[in-house]
């Protein structure tokens, strides 16, 4: 966690400090409206947790478009170039092979391998790029402190707001979420290191 000037209770280790406000909701519709309220209230360090991707949530949270496509485009270009360079070096420069009366650099015969490596690199870009953007794997996170959060992968919907958010105020934020029909609101704590 980054700066937390407003709370004055970080002393010796073993003590706890609040890090997240977690609110639970029952349906996709309610979490959607709650997300819109949190967005409109101007929060920036918050998140929504759902068991499946809820359609329209990106807009409700005010998220900008995913950057993943750019990573994949770069990887695709890398894959194609690597394949071409590999084949060119191996079959043209280092050991020219003349097979079937074709010249060493026969473009049609390069196509299958160049295509496959383009796809392979793109797939690595998509998967590992996604992990990178999402900062996964991350096995420890304050939300996991909550026992109720175990149902975030089953049938419940959650909003988590970081205590470090500049707009955060325990009482007002709690009222905001309860006003959006949260069924349960709790403050999650983390040990001060």
């Amino acid at each position, binding site marked *: 966690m980054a700066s937390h000037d407003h709370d004055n209770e970080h002393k010796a280790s073993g003590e706890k400090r609040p890090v997240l406000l977690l609110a639970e909701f*029952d*349906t*996709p*519709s*309610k979490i959607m*409206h709650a*997300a*819109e309220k949190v967005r409109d209230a101007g929060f920036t360090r918050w998140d929504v*947790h*759902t*068991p*499946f*991707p*809820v*359609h329209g*949530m*990106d*807009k409700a*949270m005010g*998220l900008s478009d*995913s950057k*993943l*496509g750019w990573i*994949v485009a770069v990887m695709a270009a890398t894959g194609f170039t690597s394949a071409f360079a590999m*084949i060119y070096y*191996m*079959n043209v420069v280092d*050991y020219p092979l003349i*097979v079937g009366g074709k010249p060493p650099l*026969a473009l049609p015969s390069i196509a*299958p*391998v160049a*295509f*496959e*490596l383009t*796809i*392979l690199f*793109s*797939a690595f870009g*998509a*998967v590992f790029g*996604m992990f990178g953007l*999402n900062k*996964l*794997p*991350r*096995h420890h*996170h304050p*939300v*996991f402190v909550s026992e109720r*959060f*175990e*149902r*975030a*992968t*089953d*049938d419940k919907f*959650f909003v988590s707001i970081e205590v470090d958010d500049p707009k955060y105020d325990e009482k007002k934020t709690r009222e905001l979420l309860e006003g*959006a*029909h949260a069924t349960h609101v709790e403050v999650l704590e983390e040990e001060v290191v």
Partner: protein
Amino acid sequence: MSAVNPNLPIKDINEVPLAAESYDFHGITEDVARVTETPAPRGWWVMFLIAVSLLGALGLTLAYLFWKGIGAWGNNQPISWAWDITNFVWWVGIGHAGTLISAVLFLFRQKWRTSINRAAEAMTIFAVICALMFPGIHVGRVWLMYYPFPLPNSMGIWPNFKSPLLWDVFAVSTYFTVSLLFWFVGLIPDLATLRDRSKTKIRRMAYGAFALGWRGSNRHWQNYERAYMILAAISTPLVLSVHSVVSFDFATSVIPGWHTTIFPPYFVAGAIFSGFAMVLTLMLVVRVVFKLHGLITLKHIELMNKIILATGSIVGYAYAMEFFVAWYSGNEYERYVFFVSRMKGPYAWAYWSMIICNVLSPQIFWKKSMRTNIPVTFAVSIFVNIGMWFERFVIIATSLHRDFLPSSWGYFHPTPIDVMVYLGSFGLFFTFFLLFIRWLPVIAIAEVKGVLPAADPHAEHYGHDSHDDHDSHEKPADGEATAEA
């Protein structure tokens, strides 16, 4: 989740729901996770013991094969490819349904895929493992298997990138890697579900390690869904390319019956055909053994049968077209292969078995009552599995057994080692598949939840007016009233 408005969008277009109507989110979690959390039914153990025994027999057979050399097989000149390449193409073909269901149907917004895509993807991966085994052992001296890889070696020579056999190495290994990534990405949210339900520390650690700390964050879902879409978009040309490249192994050689331009589309259609047949064979059993009738519904089976009918007819058209082109080309070797070898030669029995299984048997699916009949579907799926094996055998054996010189004509007789390696590949496949259905979510939990009517954030006030961002602040009370009604 009883509070669901009955006036749901899916009804508006007279669609049958994709999961039984009684399902709520938690019900799906329960039914799918239960398979991995309760002791395996006896049927599972019976099948697993058979599969592991076959796998053990495969190990012993391969050990003997490596010791003796491939003379232990019935392969000869001219039929040097025989069962190995037949089995390779057959297994790779089966492996096509998974990615087709995951990628192509995803891009076409065919939401019914969600109930079957997980198992079909798993099937793909295991089928490709079986497929890769065959060229691996067919090279004879397995310790020289690194030859096709672009590695520096003591001969100072590189692989020949003009060879379709080398393209095949790249195509199939890329296909395997991408399928595995696709499958794993799909599994992450469901592994998190299993992690969060775990009662023991070992389960929590095991599922948790692979769930990568997934917490259902919408900031993650956004990139996740984009990654999934990109994987689908790149896997679609990939799946079409893989069997095209496999067909190049045949089509680029000057063997009568192989040297045709129809091969790539014909092989791809056949691959989808056989893959769907295998998915049906497996899913019909899985839904009974694990009581998943509400998630793998008759609707899914009917849709898959339609694809079987369509691709089976394409394959039938391709068979007819081969005859036409052989006749039209005026090439006597081509004509001989089709009008003599296949129709009435020593392998006519295999050819006509193929026609009956692949072309005739799926035609029964023109009738809806047959498409929705489980025993008939199961029988046809088995017929198609057999027929597609014969297709590859017919292509290989009939074209090779009559060489250009009558002095080198031959006939292929399988040895017990041939048979044992083929049966053993089933052991390999089913051992993996049975472990998969026992320990991993066999249905994509998060995806099926996403296609439930209740997953639509507008579901609660559907029929009032369309939800809009501006008037959203008044809406919750409104939606609540409807929900409680």
